[in-house]
């Protein structure tokens, strides 16, 4: 991989990390501590995803947290995979995984929750 890419990624890891402190912390405190899993159901999510502000918020969280985490996983894997070829394969695998899962997450955020489809 080009050194320039690695240098930009090194900075991006640090800046995205700083951004994730408000983004991820607020999300986790809100959902897991204040609201709590016993108060979360599909209706709760439907109301939140009907609000553009929260959709944008979740979108930023999805983009930054997941890219940061997957690039971090690439770094960790490079400590174990040393050959040029192996690193290329790992990079491609992680890139594809990242794209596919991000796409699934993004579609769900835009599509919103659909409790009306539950039949029972």
């Amino acid at each position: 991989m080009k050194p320039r890419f690695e240098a930009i990624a090194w900075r991006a890891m640090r800046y995205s990390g700083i951004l994730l402190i408000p983004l991820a912390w607020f999300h986790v405190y809100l959902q897991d501590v204040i609201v709590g899993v016993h108060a979360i159901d599909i209706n709760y999510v439907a109301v939140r995803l009907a609000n553009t502000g929260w959709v944008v918020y979740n979108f930023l969280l999805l983009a930054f947290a997941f890219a940061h985490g997957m690039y971090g996983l690439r770094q960790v894997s490079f400590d174990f995979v040393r050959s040029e070829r192996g690193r290329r394969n790992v990079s491609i695998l992680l890139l594809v995984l990242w794209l596919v899962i991000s796409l699934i997450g993004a579609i769900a955020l835009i599509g919103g929750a659909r409790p009306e489809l539950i039949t029972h």
Partner: protein
Amino acid sequence: MASSASPLKTTATGYATYQGREGHYAFLLHRLTGLGVLLFLIIHILDTSTVYFYPELYEHAIALYRSTPFMLGEIGLVFAVIYHGVNGLRIAVTDLWMPKRWAIQTQRNAVRITLAISVLLWAPAALWMTYNMLLHNHGINLLPFIGTH
């Protein structure tokens, strides 16, 4: 160590045997918490996506998150997100704006402070989540004067 040692073995034994003390433990914990949160995040993105793709499945996913073993895991997850964040901030700020502070003695203290801040931020959340877990899953109300909600 033989020069032909596999990177896997070198890295794995390096994790266990490198004698950097505080800085080394901070690095290991940062790595462990980062990977742990990432694993959770992958599952979380996929289960949240069921609200659009398979709404019937979402209830099952949430039911799992409400079980006692998962709630214990969530208390750990909150610690991981907090510690990784506080320690990541220490790394980012030192790297970007004050690289001179990467001296081992300075960092030994910084690592201890990082851990203390993390525990302080985590403790109230952990207590509140434990209260909720006992209340909803075991019918134990540790704060009867607050009333149930």
